[in-house]
């Protein structure tokens, strides 16, 4: 089995097997060739959101060992700390065993077990009543869901617009910021060109998003000696290995980026040619204050944006390949004053308010450092240009003999995302990348197919009309292009329970899961009947203001009924949220189920080609549990939802596996793109192939298509790529994708705020819309910082998940919890000294929303005005199969308790959700705190403490001694 060329990420000569792997004759009796497994099943990991390929070694029906799949495009054989601990997740004592029906008060954990038939019948009865009367009274929100193309479609078929997953409280600022700017985004829909980058900037990336691909990439950069610059208040994880760590003050990344842009513009270090070819920098913007089209693009009769030809001095189609458009100046077209986008950009960012000296103090970064970074970026981008000797043809048919690249790349994530100014900060980073000409070029930031798509992508959110027994006219989540696309009624009241796509959060492309419980409790905008959730710990670490959230989940109306009448929840484990459910549908572990990681959702593509993957059951469940997706499909059939039953009313799909193979979203396009067509020879589009799943299993659980060399770069304007994308159904037409430096849809909202258009914001919302829907990115102080007394709350407080638990359910995992079962608050030495604190002191961490108690650890590697802790280590007693003395419940704490889920009241007394005003992204990292040493008698345990949950029926006490693996050895030795 020797492979001609070494496979996988770790295949350097210093990482290969010995030249001669025959066991030496040591004579010590060691069995150097023990048998390992009876079979190896190749499937997809689900220990986090990365979707790595794994080889599961099965021995005597038990999982012996899991390692990375060397052929898999995501992880190329490596596996992270979570992935290798999958065994302990799979055999967790916290696994639910049977459907549960609540018997005690909500939140107590008192349940009795019921049969699946009863569970289905309760749910069906409830949901069919809702569907017959008012479908939006079902709110269906899924957490770390990797089946959103199914769950969203189910909601759509049910007829409720109230659907979203966890993106709204995770990273929608990054998704929307990217998709509205360049038609792709960090992480899911793009990645740095790890093989060619020479200068890499990492903004606000903790230990996460994504896991193995970033780590593999960083390893490549390090091996090549490329420079890594991290912009992060905390010097941990990826930031620890940066050549340059810039310990920025939280929430000021946008300012830093604008200062860099300021420097680059001033020095003329921008790629004008790139801007003209691939962006709207030359598009003319109406400059007629007060007019109804002020700030919109100047367009021709067909709606094409226009530019000014600087030679002919006439307005021309901006995409005319023959044109020589102006980037600066002021013109009059058709009696209307206008100016190119680039002129607006120069006007704004050349302003002295964005000079390094003007921002240095607020960012906590020396002005010289900012100037140095700008100079380094310019140097690498313009002096170390790459040219790959590959000819390609652009959309207009122009042949290029080489592929040119500027080897600067960037990646940004939650540190940008989780602030109330995150959308604009994210756009700022994309603006910087585009000005340097580094998007989808060698060495730059590259799109992952099916992206790029038009900015923003096509479908708009459905749900304008909600009628009984009627599916929505599309998917619940989409992209708005102006006020007309909002989901609001005549007087501006939101249509959706989470207020997504309302004036509160117009571009809420992922919904606002974090607002659902409060809104449902308050009946604002309307009461609901049933809240159905999947795989998200909303009564604990996935909610802001946890204490209040738990109260809202258990609150009664005057008649003594729960304010949120019915809660259905599906999860595999006994989390802190299970006890708040009325009906619990126990899910399987990831090794017991089918899944598909679909191009319709978030696939496993990388920049060199599209891919998708499956999970398939590699071991049989030993409990009465069912995969949620199959349950949802059966529920759909029982409810008679149109897509889920045939014309005869019979179930259309037996289960999720059947759906994966046979469902077609549009003719020829289904959940999986590989091996389509009857004989399995088509990709992308093609007839249903009944053997498709087997083909995936035979191929290691995934499908991947590798681009031809000339398709790999400039995908936004590369004819060969665009044609392929059309053929695959990624985009409707082979037209170039124009980067929207100036985001016209935002201006449409602004115009509405000025009274123009059909759908207008309520008076009280107009100022807010005017301010934040700025078509060019800008910086503003995060809301909490702007609202609180900074002398009283002088510190920023952040959280990050440890790498070995990111996007995972770590704390019932016997191995991972040993690494971190309690958390400290990390405080800078000087800050601690100023407060008279020493290591291990117990402190109160107080915000305007409340206080928690924890223990501190003094460190150097953190911004001085920032404290932080590992997130979601604190667990509630009685949950996750942990014993009552587990450190998680008395030496672990959550900052969630003191993060408000609402902003402070504005002048009108209105409180918004604690979110970005553009996208509704939860602003976790806006938190401001003070720390106060606690009294001696208060030390020793964290607070708040909560009542212990009862245990579900038939839960056995967790093991005292875990001897996992002893059985494999016994079997080996017995066989000898």
């Amino acid at each position, binding site marked *: 089995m020797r492979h001609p060329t070494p496979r996988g990420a770790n295949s350097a000569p210093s990482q290969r097997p010995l030249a001669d792997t025959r066991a030496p004759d040591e004579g010590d009796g060691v069995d150097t060739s023990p048998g390992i497994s009876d079979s190896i099943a190749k499937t997809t990991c689900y220990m986090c959101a990365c979707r790595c390929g794994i080889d599961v070694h099965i021995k005597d029906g038990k999982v012996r060992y899991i390692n990375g799949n060397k052929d898999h495009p995501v992880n190329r054989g490596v596996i992270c700390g979570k992935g290798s601990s999958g065994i302990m997740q799979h055999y967790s004592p916290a696994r639910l065993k049977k459907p549960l029906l609540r018997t005690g008060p909500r939140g107590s954990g008192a349940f009795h077990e019921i049969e699946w038939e009863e569970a289905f019948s309760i749910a069906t009865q409830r949901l069919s009543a809702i569907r017959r009367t008012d479908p939006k009274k079902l709110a269906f929100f899924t957490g770390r869901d990797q089946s959103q193309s199914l769950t969203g479609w189910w909601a759509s078929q049910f007829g409720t617009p109230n659907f979203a997953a966890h993106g709204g409280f995770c990273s929608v600022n990054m998704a929307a910021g990217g998709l509205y700017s360049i038609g792709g985004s960090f992480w899911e829909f793009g990645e740095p060109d790890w093989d060619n980058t020479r200068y890499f900037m990492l903004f606000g990336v903790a230990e996460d998003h994504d896991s193995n691909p970033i780590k593999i990439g960083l390893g490549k950069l390090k091996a090549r000696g490329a420079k890594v610059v991290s912009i992060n208040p905390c010097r941990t994880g990826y930031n620890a290995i940066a050549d340059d760590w810039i310990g920025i003050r939280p929430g000021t990344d946008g300012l830093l980026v604008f200062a860099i842009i300021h420097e680059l513009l001033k020095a003329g270090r921008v790629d004008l040619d790139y801007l003209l070819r691939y962006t709207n920098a030359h598009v003319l913007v109406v400059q007629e204050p007060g007019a109804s089209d002020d700030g919109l693009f100047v367009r021709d009769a067909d709606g094409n944006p226009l530019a000014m030809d600087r030679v002919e001095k006439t307005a021309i189609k901006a995409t005319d390949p023959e044109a020589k458009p102006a980037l600066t100046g002021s013109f009059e077209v058709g009696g209307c004053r206008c100016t190119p986008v680039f002129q607006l950009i120069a006007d704004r960012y050349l302003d002295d308010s964005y000079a390094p000296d003007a921002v240095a103090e607020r960012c906590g970064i020396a002005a010289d450092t900012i100037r140095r970074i700008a100079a380094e970026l310019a140097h690498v981008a313009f002096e170390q240009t790459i040219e790959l000797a590959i000819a390609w043809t652009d959309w207009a048919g122009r042949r290029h003999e080489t592929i040119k690249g500027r080897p600067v790349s960037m990646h940004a994530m939650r540190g940008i995302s989780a602030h109330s100014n995150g959308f604009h900060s994210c756009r700022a980073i994309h603006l910087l990348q585009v000005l340097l000409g580094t998007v989808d070029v060698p060495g730059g930031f590259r799109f992952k197919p099916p992206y790029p798509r038009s900015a923003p992508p096509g479908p708009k959110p459905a749900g304008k009309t909600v009628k009984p027994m009627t599916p929505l006219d599309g998917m619940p989540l989409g992209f708005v292009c102006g006020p007309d696309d909002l989901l609001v009624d005549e007087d501006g009241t939101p249509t959706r329970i989470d207020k997504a796509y309302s004036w509160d959060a117009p571009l809420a492309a992922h919904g606002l899961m974090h607002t659902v419980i409060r809104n449902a409790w308050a009946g604002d905008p309307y009461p609901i009947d049933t809240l159905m959730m999947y795989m998200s710990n909303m009564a604990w670490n996935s909610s802001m203001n946890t204490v209040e959230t738990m109260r809202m989940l258990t609150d009664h109306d005057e008649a003594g009924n729960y304010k949120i009448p019915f809660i259905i929840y599906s999860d595999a484990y006994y989390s802190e949220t299970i006890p708040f459910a009325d009906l619990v549908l126990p899910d399987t572990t990831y090794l017991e189920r089918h899944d598909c990681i679909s191009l319709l959702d978030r696939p496993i593509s990388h920049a060199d080609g599209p891919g998708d993957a499956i999970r398939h059951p590699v071991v049989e469940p030993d409990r009465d549990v069912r995969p949620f997706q199959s349950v949802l499909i059966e529920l759909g059939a029982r409810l008679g939802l149109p897509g889920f039953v045939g014309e005869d009313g019979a179930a259309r799909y037996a289960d999720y596996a059947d759906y994966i193979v046979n469902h077609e979203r549009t003719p020829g396009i289904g959940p999986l793109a590989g091996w389509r067509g009857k004989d399995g020879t088509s990709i992308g589009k093609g007839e249903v192939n009944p053997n498709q799943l087997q083909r995936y299993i035979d191929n290691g659980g995934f499908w991947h298509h590798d681009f031809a060399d000339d398709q790999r770069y400039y995908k936004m304007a590369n004819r060969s790529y665009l044609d392929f994308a059309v053929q695959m159904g990624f985009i409707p037409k082979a037209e170039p994708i124009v980067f929207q430096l100036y985001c016209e849809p935002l201006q449409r909202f602004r115009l509405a705020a000025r009274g123009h258009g059909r759908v207008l914001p309520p008076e009280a919302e107009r100022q807010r819309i005017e301010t934040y829907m700025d078509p060019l990115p800008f910086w503003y102080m995060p809301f909490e910082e702007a609202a609180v007394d900074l002398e009283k709350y002088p510190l920023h407080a952040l959280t990050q998940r440890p790498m070995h638990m990111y996007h995972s359910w770590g704390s019932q995992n016997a191995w991972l919890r*040993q*690494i*971190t*079962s*309690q958390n400290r608050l990390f405080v800078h030495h000087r800050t601690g000294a100023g407060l008279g604190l020493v290591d291990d002191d117990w402190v109160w961490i107080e915000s305007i929303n409340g206080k928690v108690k924890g223990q501190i*650890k003094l*460190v*150097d*590697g953190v911004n001085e005005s920032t404290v932080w802790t590992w997130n979601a280590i604190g667990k509630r007693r009685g949950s996750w199969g942990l014993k009552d003395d587990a*450190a998680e419940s008395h030496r672990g704490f959550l900052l969630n308790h003191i993060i408000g889920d609402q902003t402070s009241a504005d002048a009108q007394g209105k409180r918004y959700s604690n979110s970005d005003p553009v996208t509704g992204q939860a602003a976790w990292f806006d938190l401001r705190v003070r720390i106060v040493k606690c009294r001696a008698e208060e030390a020793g345990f964290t607070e708040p403490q909560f009542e212990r949950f009862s245990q579900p029926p038939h839960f056995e006490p967790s093991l005292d001694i875990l001897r996992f693996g002893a059985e494999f050895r016994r079997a080996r030795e017995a066989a000898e």
Partner: protein
Amino acid sequence: MHPAFSVVFFTTATGAGYGLLALLGVLAGLQIVPADFWLGFVGLGLALGLIAAGLLSSTGHLGRPERAWRAFSQWRSSWLSREGVSSAITFIPAGLFGLGWVLLGRTGGWVAIAGLLAAIGAIVTVCTTGMIYASLKPIAQWHSRYTLPAYLIFAAMTGSVLLNALLQGFGVGSVAVLVLSLLATLAGWGWKLATWRHNDRLEIPTTANTATGLAGGTVRSLEWPHTEENYLLKEMGFRIARKHGAKLRMLTQGLAFALPVLLLAATFALPWPFGAIPSVLAAIVQFAGMLVERWLFFAEAKHTVTLYYGR
């Protein structure tokens, strides 16, 4: 280092036992101590009893005591194995010596030779015990020229004080033995003080820098690999507060050295049977003091692995 009672008791008891055995072997063989059944029975019984109890106690430290016999095999490299071999071999001359001196009431001749061999065995065994500790480079407080002499001196000290107590108890007190025990106690005291002085001024070249290979500046532990204590920390990460340590050093000095010196001095002044009381008391008090000393020997020893944990 974690002061496990099994090991603290083991080294203290065997030290005293071998000290006593060696003295009995030499002195009885050379007819300095008279052959008396009850004296011999109690004396040798005490010596061998302490040794056996100590060895038995040490097996309490073992994860698999039923395999203890395997420890005799690696005498070529392992001081622990040598200790095992030596202690086992010593039982042979000690047994013969007991047979001759106690049961047959004989001295001289083969009994003297057996006594001498038992003494040599005892000394060798104490040396091997000392070398177990002295050879451990990761523990600077042990890996010093003070450790081996300390084991020998303390064996001689506790052994002689015990012997004196015995002789006094049986009314056959010997001024020479009394003087020897007094001098040995003073020597032990001095050696202990010198050892502490040495340890307190130790400049250990192994630091967090060399432990991590991170040159220059300071290396500070940020996070442990696991948030709870593990075997390494439980076994080798034992810490004792300086204040607490100082108190225990005072206690050691009082019990192991100062009080015995006073009691032994008092013995000079008192006629039999009254002289026996302070002598026996001295032995008991000193044994207790040596337990404290040995506890501190462990508690104050710092293993290099603690550098990884910022301790």
